[in-house]
């Protein structure tokens, strides 16, 4: 029983962290039809930045600075690597995203010398806590609460502000939105900014739990978050969140079982099943092509 609770808690916590990353994927895909391969690596870089910043600055300064720098990174990546290719065929942009991911991973290897970095302990998050007889960290409880708050705030933004309306318009019909005078560059930049912001917060929560960062630490959570986004219905934010929690719990269950070797493979198996059976995911919409 205790084991079950521990797995469930860890699953919810993981799921919440994936949700924050998944939202970034789903928003970018909804607008640009681009799978932002580099998103998971931005998440990893955010973690690394925290390690280096907290070594020389007090936490109260390091955390906001890390968030700002991550947002800046996401913004720069979009402007430098994706904007120039907006009129190019889809494959080119995807290759660019892969290239950015590759660059970020190699930069991280270079800077860290290939050695795993230890994430600083954040007071309030890394402290121990006991729930229903199971010992865990505060971050496990904070995560779902924080995720719900952030998603609520985001939903408000999208449904009740002008920029949110612009984002919805652009994700419906890119070209017409442009013709109607919506400043596409601003909308796209805001999308990446929000995505990177959430990824930065997600990295705070995730690495407090996992503590050790290597250059590849971003790619697997990133891929899992992407699968969650597809599972929930790509382009749908609530879908991404639901999908992420489900994936987090499944992963937790599998890692605790005899089949833990297959935990990555399982994620991909879900992806393939979803793509083949119901590609629009749980909450997505169907689109017919005109000939």
């Amino acid at each position: 029983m205790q084991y079950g609770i521990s797995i469930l808690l860890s699953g919810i916590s993981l799921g919440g962290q994936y949700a924050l990353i998944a939202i970034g994927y789903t928003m970018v895909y909804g607008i640009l039809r681009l799978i932002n391969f580099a998103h998971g690596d931005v998440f990893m870089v955010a973690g690394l930045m925290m390690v280096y910043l907290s070594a020389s600055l007090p936490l109260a300064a390091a955390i906001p600075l890390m968030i700002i720098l991550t947002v800046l990174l996401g913004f720069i990546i979009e402007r430098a690597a994706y904007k120039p290719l907006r009129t190019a065929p889809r494959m080119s942009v995807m290759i660019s995203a892969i290239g950015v991911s590759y660059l970020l991973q190699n930069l991280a290897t270079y800077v860290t010398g290939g050695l795993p970095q230890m994430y600083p302990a954040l007071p309030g998050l890394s402290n121990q806590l006991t729930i229903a007889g199971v010992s865990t960290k505060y971050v496990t409880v904070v995560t779902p609460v924080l995720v719900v708050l952030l998603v609520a705030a985001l939903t408000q933004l999208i449904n009740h502000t002008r920029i949110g309306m612009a984002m919805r318009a652009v994700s419906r019909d890119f070209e017409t939105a442009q013709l109607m005078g919506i400043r596409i560059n601003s909308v796209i930049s805001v999308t990446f900014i929000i995505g990177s912001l959430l990824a930065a917060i997600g990295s705070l929560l995730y690495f407090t739990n996992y503590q050790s960062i290597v250059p590849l630490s971003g790619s697997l959570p990133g891929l899992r978050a992407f699968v969650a986004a597809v599972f929930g219905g790509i382009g749908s934010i609530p879908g991404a969140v639901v999908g992420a929690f489900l994936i987090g719990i499944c992963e937790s269950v599998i890692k605790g079982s005899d089949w833990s070797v297959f935990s990555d493979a399982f994620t991909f198996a879900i992806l393939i099943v979803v793509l083949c059976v119901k590609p629009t995911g749980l909450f997505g919409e169907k689109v017919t092509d005109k000939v």
Partner: protein
Amino acid sequence: MLNEKKSKRGTVIALLCALALLALVVLLENTMKPTGMLFTVLKKGAVYALVAVSMNLLNGFTGLFSLGQAGFMLLGAYTYAILTIPTADREAVYYLYNGSAVNFSLPELFGGGAVGLVLGVLLALFLGGCVAAAVAWLIGLPVLRLKSDYLAIATLGFAEIIRAIFQWDPLGPVTNGANALKSFPTFSSFNIQNADGKVILRLSTFVPFLLAGVCVAVIVLLINSTYGRAFKAIRDDEVAAEAMGINLARHKRLAFCISSFFAGVGGGLFAMFANQAQAKVFTTAMTYEILLIVVIGGIGSISGSCIAAFLYVAASEWWLRFLDAETYIGSFKVPFLRTGFRMVVFSVIIMVVVLFFRKGIMGDKELPDLLKKRQKKATKEAVQP
């Protein structure tokens, strides 16, 4: 009539060039220091060229964005290794599993010796390709209907699943689990030795060039056939292709299986190059390397992929190595240069190519096209004084 003559002449010239290249390779290897960097680059380059061309066939010529190449290479590498490890060595290789489940070796079945080696290796490579193609056929059934970005992620997913399966302990007696497979025939096994064991003719670079070359030639033949044209039609406009009688599902599956076959053969060759076959090497990062080679060479150009493969391997393994070494000019330490810098510079170069030289080195042209243009220019200038 004239066109036929021209193309026949073109084929003869191509064949002669290929033979000259092979002869050059043999000459180089037997005159220069055989352990030099040059030969590592040539061998790895030849293998990567084949895999890159196989990926180009799928991505560049049929327009199917697949990221599963490493998975198919893995299948080919393992099939090749499992079928050719000498029975005497099996116990040692599979030490964790008390021997291998497969207890024969193809070269031995063919009678051992030089003949056995050649036939055994060729058959094992061929079967490696077949296994890869068979798995591709299965994967293709659900996956090929997906849109381009989803197809990419799904094939990437399958490659990772394959890798997980091959590292799975219970399959150890066949795959050796997480351990490497070794002791199978490699490129060096083809060096001809005299009675004393001294090597008299080195063929270890000739063999990969020959094998990769033959495979690339077959792909070129395919591209220029009616099926190759159908693939290009699917890439350019699949709605029109379907309307003109080309069955999309069948042809996409065909392209996928053929591409995977050659990726499998490439995997077997890679195992021969690396002297071992281990699942954890065939990661998504390897697929990305091949993808980048295809992009740098030009999506849709076979000669581009070949050239880019050699350039890539030379740059990453050889020319840029100095960037990883801490260098001092006098007592001044040059900033930035230390381990890992090479890959950073490399990644930056790739981004530059992707952003500013999207067409790659060759665009979608082939070497003969460039030479034809030169000829045309020359005759034009000759006519106008």
